[in-house]
């Protein structure tokens, strides 16, 4: 029964306009009056190509600035220059030390709620589509139950005094 219902719903969703609105579809991409770069950037990888181009330019800019300043400045290192400057007492011993296990719980809590956030994304992105399909209230209730169950865990952590800082 579930199997039979899923397909028409997806087909219906494909007809609703806002499902595909963030990115132009293949028709827009293949429009002939556009130049090569506009065509490429309209496609799926366009966003990532833009990001990669910005990353590359940024890296070039920083590398160029650092290399240029290294080529221009005089280089005269002394032991005094590599001391920490106006940072209180000189450090003793290594920086790597053992940590309290207490911090582990915070990392664990972060992991759990990170996974929860991952499930919230497809819900939040599709809210308009869901309400167009007439399942808005249902989806809202489902998400409230989902978050509610995890809030129970947070309540447990608070009651156990895990989040208290001592």
């Amino acid at each position, binding site marked *: 029964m*579930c*199997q039979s219902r*899923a397909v028409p*719903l*997806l087909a219906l*969703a494909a007809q609703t306009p806002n*499902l*595909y609105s963030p990115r132009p*579809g*293949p028709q827009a*991409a293949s429009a002939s009056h556009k130049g090569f770069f506009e065509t490429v950037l309209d*496609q*799926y*990888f366009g966003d*990532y190509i833009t990001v990669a181009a910005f990353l590359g330019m940024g890296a070039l800019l920083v590398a160029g600035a650092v290399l240029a300043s290294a080529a221009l400045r005089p280089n005269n290192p002394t032991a005094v220059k590599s001391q920490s400057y106006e940072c209180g007492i000189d450090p003793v011993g*290594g920086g*790597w*030390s*053992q*940590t*309290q*296990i207490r*911090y*582990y*719980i915070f*990392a*664990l*809590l*972060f*992991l*759990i709620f*990170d*996974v*929860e*956030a*991952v*499930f919230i*994304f*497809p*819900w939040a*992105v*599709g809210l308009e*589509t*869901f309400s167009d399909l007439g*399942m808005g209230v*249902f*989806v809202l209730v*489902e998400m409230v*139950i*989902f*978050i509610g*169950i*995890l809030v*129970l*865990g947070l309540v*447990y*952590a608070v009651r*156990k*005094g*895990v989040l208290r800082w001592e």
Partner: protein
Amino acid sequence: MDVGDWVSTPQNWVFLVIALPMLFAGFKVVQTSNVVHAVLYLVGTLGGSAALFILLGAEFVAWTVVLVYIGAVIVLFLFGIMITRAPLGFDVTLSHPVRIRVAAAVVAFVLFALVGGAMLAEFENQTIPEAADATRTVEIGLSIFDRFVIPFEVVSVVLLAALIGGIVLARRDPAEEEEAGVVR
């Protein structure tokens, strides 16, 4: 697919650019004798797998890898190292004798052959859809709330169990702590 086809497809080159550093980082994860460096190389491997997912048109999976694995699991690894291995840094006990290395290589190869063989047997002639038909996050949401509602709610119970279990394991009772004479 012949060589000319392979060369003229840009995706193949992007795949190479992503996969070769991944191989290198994966090798360094097991090769380096500094556990913190191993974790950082693991970040590189996971980032590469996220990039491969983007290349396959699975954006949501890619960003889930970034959020959960690079964001949270790596933090857990680092915390685990910081709690258990001190002082950190170079660790000679990580180097194993040759026969153990050979056994590990054999296990890794068999696992690779099994997974690769299963994938080839299952997806032999299938092609992934064009990038324009890439799975959108909305569609994932639709299938979650239409077909997989109960599993979705079960996930929250599993997460709750993990949360409580983690708290029980990682935290000592204050009464126990006083008994053990822990000074705050």
